[in-house]
């Protein structure tokens, strides 16, 4: 029998028991659908993150925290020894070890570090514009060299006396500006409370409006004069010892360091008791989380495919049983056992083929629709963000893998078919 005839015969055999074939294909469909969708999301997010990483800038920046301190604070299960001079802050039940001047000096003296400063965190309570409505916001420092995709205006300048602020794209309109462009050069007021509870207001100039990106999730970016002013007000009247402590130090390292030397620098800082990561590392963490989620989803897709392969075995065993006479007849007419095997394993692969084809197509369709909905709504401001991405190659790979699984599942029934004795098959009632 020619290969094309085997293919055609297997395909038409498959549709002889439509409902059964349909039910078997559903299981494969679910597996293929999930795999396509999760990989699509994975690829979409990964490419966005890569793009973000590509234009993040400030590649020479290290974010330094005390070792054992993580962004979520410490929740140690075993009591840890208090070291003399160590400061701890407690926010909402989560305690964080703080860095002091001594730490700063130690970091500054580390070879490879060009400069280091406290990352001053300020907590203003509102921002308000022309319409005098007050809005909550998160303030973060603008770091020199960080690339920002601007919608209007320019990036803040840290080397000036002027207090500057960079808004994100959703702020100008709510603050009462006609458009992002109209906000540039205008003053906004930032409210902050002193330790004694007194409400103070600082005026800042809007220098730019940025697109929402992964990097802008940190909130509005303030230049250093504005940050210092707010910090002064925030710590007004407190002893100097209490103000010179921060959870994070940002440092710049020598840009001529290669990857290996940078690793060495991180290691040195680690030995000194600090945890140093670059912005790239930080985004890498997001990627790791997404990768983990995708791995879990792929695991479930794998289980669906495992179930599907039992479905294939079951369906084909039934088919072999039903077609016993037909197999006997074909063998009597000189069809070799090898070709009988091929006929049934081809049918298994075709089940895999149709299931994975329909599943991938559905996965791509749903992915594209979800992407459209997402980018039109909650991801609207994340310019350039594609929730899903479907490279053709990865779809082919998924289909190929599923067809291989189907083939393997088909070997058992196909073997049984090829082993049938023509006489017994012809006598079979």
């Amino acid at each position, binding site marked *: *029998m020619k290969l094309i*005839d085997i293919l055609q015969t297997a395909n038409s055999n498959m549709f002889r028991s439509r409902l059964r074939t349909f039910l078997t294909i559903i299981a494969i469909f679910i597996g293929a659908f999930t795999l396509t969708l999760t990989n699509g999301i994975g690829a979409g997010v990964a490419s966005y993150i890569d793009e973000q990483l590509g234009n993040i800038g400030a590649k020479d920046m290290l974010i330094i925290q005390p070792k054992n301190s993580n962004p979520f604070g410490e929740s140690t299960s075993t009591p840890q020894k208090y070291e003399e001079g160590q400061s701890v802050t407690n926010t909402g039940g989560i305690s964080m070890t703080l860095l002091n001047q001594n730490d700063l000096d130690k970091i500054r003296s580390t070879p490879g570090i060009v400069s280091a400063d406290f990352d001053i965190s300020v907590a203003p309570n509102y921002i308000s514009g022309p319409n005098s409505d007050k809005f909550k916001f998160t303030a973060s420092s603008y770091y020199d060299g960080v690339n920002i995709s601007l919608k209007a205006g320019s990036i803040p300048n840290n080397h000036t006396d002027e207090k500057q602020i960079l808004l994100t794209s959703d702020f100008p309109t709510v603050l009462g500006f006609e458009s992002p462009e109209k906000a540039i050069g205008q003053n906004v007021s930032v409210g902050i409370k002193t330790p004694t509870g007194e409400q103070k207001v600082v005026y800042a100039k809007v220098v730019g409006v940025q697109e929402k990106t992964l990097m802008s999730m940190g909130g509005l970016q303030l230049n250093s004069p504005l940050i210092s002013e707010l910090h002064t007000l925030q710590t007004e009247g407190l002893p100097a010892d209490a103000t010179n402590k921060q959870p994070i130090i940002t440092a710049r390292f020598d840009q001529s360091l290669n990857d290996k030397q940078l690793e060495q620098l991180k290691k040195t800082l680690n030995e000194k008791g600090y945890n140093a990561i670059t912005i790239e590392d930080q985004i890498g963490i997001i990627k790791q989380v997404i990768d983990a989620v995708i791995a879990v989803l792929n695991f479930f897709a794998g289980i669906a495919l495992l179930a599907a392969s039992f479905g294939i075995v079951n369906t084909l065993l039934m088919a072999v049983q039903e077609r016993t006479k037909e197999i*006997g007849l074909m063998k*009597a007419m*000189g069809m*070799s*056992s090898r070709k009988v095997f091929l006929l049934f394993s081809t049918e298994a692969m075709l089940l895999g083929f149709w299931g994975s084809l329909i599943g991938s197509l559905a996965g791509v369709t749903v992915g594209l629709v979800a992407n459209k909905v997402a980018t039109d709504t909650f991801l609207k401001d994340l310019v350039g963000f594609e929730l899903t991405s479907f490279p053709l190659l990865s779809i082919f790979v998924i289909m190929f893998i599923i067809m291989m699984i189907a083939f393997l599942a088909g070997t058992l029934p196909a073997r049984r078919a090829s082993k049938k004795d023509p006489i017994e098959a012809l006598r079979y009632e």
Partner: protein
Amino acid sequence: MWVSSQPNTEAKSIVKIDVLIYNSRNHMSVISAKKITRVYGKKESAFKALDNINLDIKQGESIAIIGKSGSGKSTLMHLLALLDTPTSGSLFINDQDSGKLSKKELDNLRNQSFGFVFQQFFLNSNNSVLENVILPLKIAGMDRKDRTKRGLEALRSVDLADKAKNKASDLSGGQKQRVCIARALINNPSIIFADEPTGNLDSQTGNKIENLLFKLNKEQGITLIIVTHDDELAKRCSRQINLKDGKVINRGKK
């Protein structure tokens, strides 16, 4: 005269030529069985379905295998058709020891030289009549175009050319058996094996099928080996082999 009695292959080929010169085509033996025995099962449950059968069938003969139910008729036919191997004894096809043929050679032999008709039709009811008829050619790996042409020819010879496109399940019993005959002769076989070809048909339709088979025998010289319960059919054959409990009890010539 038997090839197996010749010790070396050179001698074998000489004998083969001798046979060809000595026998006209119509007298050459296509199948010969030497002391074949078929035992089903093992040990206590062992059952001798065929016991020491010797048989020599010449090209162009029509053989009826008759006997009571359970006497071993089908068993014998399956052995002669190379669908089964004897427990002991040997079988020669065109003077070649079938026991020495590879699986592939056996498959090819059945595919190219044998035609089969069974009491049950074994037609694929989902497929068209034509598709059913050309199955042996499909197995042989023939092109679609050629096999369709041959299929239509075969259907014409059984007067069913107009049903080629119909589903096999749409036909009457007699028509179905004619389709089976068309399928059996599509590869221009030298032997047609038929296991109770008229068993499921009324006598009139059965007659038609018989006529068809004997026409092939006369006009194309196809050897017929027919298993039957029907005395009328058996008498039309050139020779009857009467089986009883796995043994040949008479060999009558017409």
